């Protein structure tokens, strides 16, 4: 049974007046434990709403239809209890876009402790969880610092540690790299990949950066509230025209490879990342020399 199972999900919200605006239109999606999934889409494709629904943090459920099962908890059910909601949020952790707006405490380690404190984790386990979480994201050195003195990438790593300390099985990153500089982005991406590969946490990353998508196990493209493509990066990137219609561009290295192939160069894939692209080109070059 998949960890997250979404069936025929529709969602709309109402502006102050007028007809409700439809955001999601019949989504079917299942995500298994341990997967590293990137959800791609341009602004307004519904990707953030989808993420927020999985954690029950949208404001209004009036126009939510269909079913979202997270580890057996039916999110959209009428009879959902407060305990269910707490359990859901314990299973699914979420890291947001702006690191400044998700840190609560004035000291790094106390912020990391915020989630487990809410769960009522007793000492000494609380202390262990905080230390381990900070170590996992490589921020142990900053345990006693004030968050506002850290860089964007460091703040976002502290926010990630705050979620890890709650020991979730799924982590959703809702455009968590969008506000960071290139160094901060790399720090966060390396952290989330490490969490998936080494800790076995299911990672759902929502982004519009194609090069982030290239590194995932599975890419889902949302367009206008519907799933446009779903597959491995190579499968998804093969649909260049569809992606462009959805407002997305291929990663530059992949686009380059396609252009070279159009000019007659014989290349063998995959070439989703710069490393793969370099390898494909080297192979082609060697073949010509040899």
């Amino acid at each position, binding site marked *: 049974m998949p960890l997250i199972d979404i069936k025929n999900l529709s969602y709309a919200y109402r502006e102050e007046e007028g007809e409700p605006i439809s955001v999601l239109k019949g989504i079917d999606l299942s995500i298994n434990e341990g997967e590293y999934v990137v959800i791609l889409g341009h602004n307004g494709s519904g990707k953030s709403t989808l993420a927020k629904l999985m954690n029950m943090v949208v404001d209004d459920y009036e126009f939510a239809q269909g079913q979202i099962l997270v580890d057996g908890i039916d999110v959209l059910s009428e009879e959902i209890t407060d305990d269910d909601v707490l359990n859901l949020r314990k299973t699914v952790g979420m890291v947001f876009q702006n690191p*400044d707006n998700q840190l609560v405490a004035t000291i790094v380690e106390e912020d990391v402790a915020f989630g487990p404190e809410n769960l009522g984790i007793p000492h000494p386990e609380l202390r262990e969880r905080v230390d381990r979480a900070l170590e996992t994201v490589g921020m142990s050195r900053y345990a006693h610092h004030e*968050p506002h003195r850290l860089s964007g990438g460091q703040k976002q790593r502290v926010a990630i540690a705050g979620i890890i300390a709650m020991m979730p099985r799924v982590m959703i990153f809702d455009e968590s790299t969008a506000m960071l500089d290139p160094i901060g982005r790399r720090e966060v991406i390396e952290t989330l990949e490490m969490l998936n590969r080494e800790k076995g946490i299911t990672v759902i990353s929502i982004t519009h950066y194609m090069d982030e998508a290239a590194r995932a196990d599975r890419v889902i493209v949302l367009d206008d509230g519907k799933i446009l493509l779903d597959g491995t990066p190579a499968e998804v990137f093969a649909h260049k025209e569809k992606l462009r219609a959805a407002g997305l561009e291929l990663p530059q290295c992949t686009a380059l490879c396609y252009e070279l192939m159009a000019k007659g160069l014989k290349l063998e894939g995959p070439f989703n990342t710069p490393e793969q692209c370099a390898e494909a080109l080297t192979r082609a070059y060697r073949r010509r020399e040899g």
Partner: protein
Amino acid sequence: MKGFALGQYYPADSVIHRLDPRMKVIAAILYIVASFLCKNFFAFVLLVVSALFLTLVSKIPLKILLRSIRALIFIMIFTAVINIFWFTEPDAEPLLAWKFIKIYRGGLFNALFILVRILAMVIGTSIFLTYTTSPIALTDAIEHLLRPLAKIKVPVHEFAMMMTIALRFIPTIVEETDKIMSAQKARGADFTTGSLMSRAKALIPVIIPLFASAFRRAGELATAMECRCYHGGEGRTKLRILRYHVRDFVALFVIFLFVGGIIAINIFGAKYGWVYTM
């Protein structure tokens, strides 16, 4: 604004820094009470000695301590001067009499006592609370001390949470104010010249975006807190546990000794009719 410091906390390694914050809140209250109890010259001498003692023990540089006094200097002088003129002794000869103004010897002492009292209170509270206790430790202490009030439905946890969040966001908002002011300056806003009125008006285009963004931040923070299972103070544990040590009880004993000393001097003073009482 990376160097922006929260509060006036002065990090140093002193006995007072190491005291439990709850004990420091209690000590500060007792110290204020003691300064109000002082009734005669010798009690005030003891008060001055204790203030000097605190300054020495806390390892706070005098320069920094003077900063907190400077802010109150006007109030102190004003109250002292009022007291000089206000004081009347019916059966004593005034030192100076000019028209309706009469200055008595007792009035001068009274003014001096009030000056010393305010000075001691400022030094006492700033040493016990602001300079040696970080704002977050202070919030923790107040939450602990007020916890009994939660039984009569006073939202103690919520209050402490609000304090923590406010402290967390002060530097963020200050930084943002800087950014908005620069942005408005780049568009030709002028904050430094003109009348007070026009300068106040120039701040409106700073305040409105600042408020808008603060509300947006609040919304996002609330969502993030919900995601991290925040559901009020019920069933919450805390990473930092406050524990009383032997030194805390020693400090409390010393403070009680000090208050007792002042009361004893008052009683002696009343018995033997020491002069310059108030």
